[in-house]
């Protein structure tokens, strides 16, 4: 159960969740519910594949994922912040839009609405093997996972610092708790919320890019509910990056164990339910009392 391969797998499974959950944190800390994470992941995945396909450069693809994530979250921002429409409604609509638009565009570009051709993935980081033992040592540390895995972990640390140690983070948290107070101090609530939502788009978009580049392909609806799981992880982690990281690793682990358990006479269906049941149990047992940002979901 604690085999290295399972832990490896857990970390990789957790990576898109980590990006998306961090994104969710920035959005919700600013007071905007982001159920659109699912659609943003999908959009990021799609964009990264398109750009990688045309440029042959997966890093350009990842960048495109970030950009596309921000673009679609901009819709969420405009609809829910400028027009002050219901945030959940807006999120649901964006998920639908992302699903339709990515399939539609996949069809336009590649003639099938289900699959893209394979694209280049990201090369693992590392020093040339010819450098000898030192290179091998270094590579064992930083070359074991795809680069975005490390970036995800680093993002957690950065997010934690940004949220709790910088003026921006302080303002963001205050905006989600008490937007009037922020407004009276001359800080623009609209700007803070736009920042939060766009950051969430950037991060979740990168998560989508990882998803697609790690499989070297875009497949319709490939987010497959991960946005929702990320949402759960965010709540599970009480809207804290470190906490969310823990939750994502737990979910990733549950999924990896689930995959590893197969063929041992437990029906696949039941094993696959583990993360979902776990989430529900955790919500009841641990998180029931967690307090979301006070002004969340309320247009200002």
């Amino acid at each position, binding site marked *: 159960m604690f085999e290295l391969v399972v832990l*490896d797998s857990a970390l*990789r*499974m957790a990576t898109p969740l980590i990006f998306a959950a961090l994104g969710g944190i920035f959005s919700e800390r600013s007071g905007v519910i982001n159920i659109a994470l699912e659609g943003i992941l999908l959009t990021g995945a799609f964009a990264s594949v398109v750009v990688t396909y045309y440029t042959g450069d997966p890093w350009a693809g990842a960048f495109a994922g970030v950009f596309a994530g921000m673009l679609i979250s901009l819709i969420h921002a405009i609809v829910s912040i400028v027009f002050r429409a219901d945030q959940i409604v807006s999120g649901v609509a964006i998920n639908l839009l992302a699903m339709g638009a990515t399939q539609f565009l996949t069809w336009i570009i590649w003639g099938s609405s*289900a699959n893209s051709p394979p694209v280049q993935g990201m090369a693992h980081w590392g020093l040339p093997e010819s450098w000898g033992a030192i290179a091998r040592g270094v590579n064992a540390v930083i070359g074991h996972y795809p680069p975005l895995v490390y970036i995800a972990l680093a993002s957690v640390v950065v997010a934690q610092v940004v949220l709790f140690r910088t003026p921006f983070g302080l303002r963001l948290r205050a905006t989600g708790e008490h937007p009037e107070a922020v407004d009276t101090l001359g800080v623009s609530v609209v700007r803070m919320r736009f920042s939060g939502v766009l950051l969430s788009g950037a991060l979740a978009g990168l998560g989508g890019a990882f998803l697609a580049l790690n*499989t*070297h392909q875009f497949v319709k609806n490939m987010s*497959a509910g991960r946005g929702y799981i990320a949402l759960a992880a965010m709540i599970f982690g009480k809207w804290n990056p470190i906490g969310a990281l823990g939750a994502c690793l737990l979910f990733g682990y549950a999924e990896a164990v689930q995959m590893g358990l197969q063929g041992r006479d437990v029906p696949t269906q039941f094993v696959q339910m583990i993360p979902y049941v776990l989430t529900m149990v955790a919500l009841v047992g641990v998180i029931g009392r967690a307090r979301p940002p006070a002004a969340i979901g309320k247009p200002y």
Partner: protein
Amino acid sequence: NTGDDATEVDAFRVGMVFDVGGKGDKSFNDSAYRGLLRAADDFEVEHTEFEPGQDADRETGLRKLAQAGYDVIIGVGFLFSEAMRNVAVDYPDVNFACVDFDVRPGETLPPNLAGLRFREEEGSFLVGVLAAMYSKTGRLGFVGGMDIPLIHKFEAGYVAGARYVDPGISTTVAYAGTTPQAFADPARGKELALLQFGRGVDVIYHASGSTGNGVIEAAKEVGKTAIGVDSNQNYMAPGNVLTSMVKKVDNAVYMTVQAALEGTFEGGLREFGLEDEGIGYAVDQYNEDLITDEMLAKVEEAKAAIVAGEIVVPKR
């Protein structure tokens, strides 16, 4: 290649309806599509394809094609069985064919409906033989798409083939899921494969549509081998794809169109297996270095035995 007007019916027209996973899966659906394209080229027929969104659309879509005067309508995948059955009786002048037709015990098909079935277990047996001989660790892997009897056939044949070579060989089995999405989830395929490789497996056979793209990707990444399915997937990672279990859906489709065109279309069940080359394994420039003569000899021996009925390959 469209015809939105039912009255202009000069050309011979073929409609194709795809299964989950869709066009571009490099596997099952693409194999069927290749057959259609080849037929379209050779016989200058018009064609259209679509991927139904919801269950009820399968039947409705088939009816629309039939009403619009299509001459041959081909459903790719067993999920079309029921709809085909219902529609065929209403349009006796249209020829229907369904790949992997899910026949009911004792059922007779109408004369305008052909059920195209494949003995995948036979081909799976052969790639099992190759896998067992190629494996250095003595541990094989299998990644299935949706956990359903159709895919269990692949698993059973593969395991039997491997045991034919080495009765003590172990096979790790995993399925990507229980929804049709399981045939279209390369991310999951990759993780399942990496897990198996990580546990000492060195050859994985996948029967999982585009999910298998992830399996092949994983093989490439860790330098192990995968076995492709349905289409010849050897080219996808030369050196890391041991072989492919080809299910010649393309040929079946091609022949169906040809027969309809020539007026020799026959309804009823049609089973393709090793003996008629409807099923096989692929050796080409991408994998010839991996397959030794000894392996070739052994697999041909097994093939002959199956065709001769000396080996009966289990289906589950």
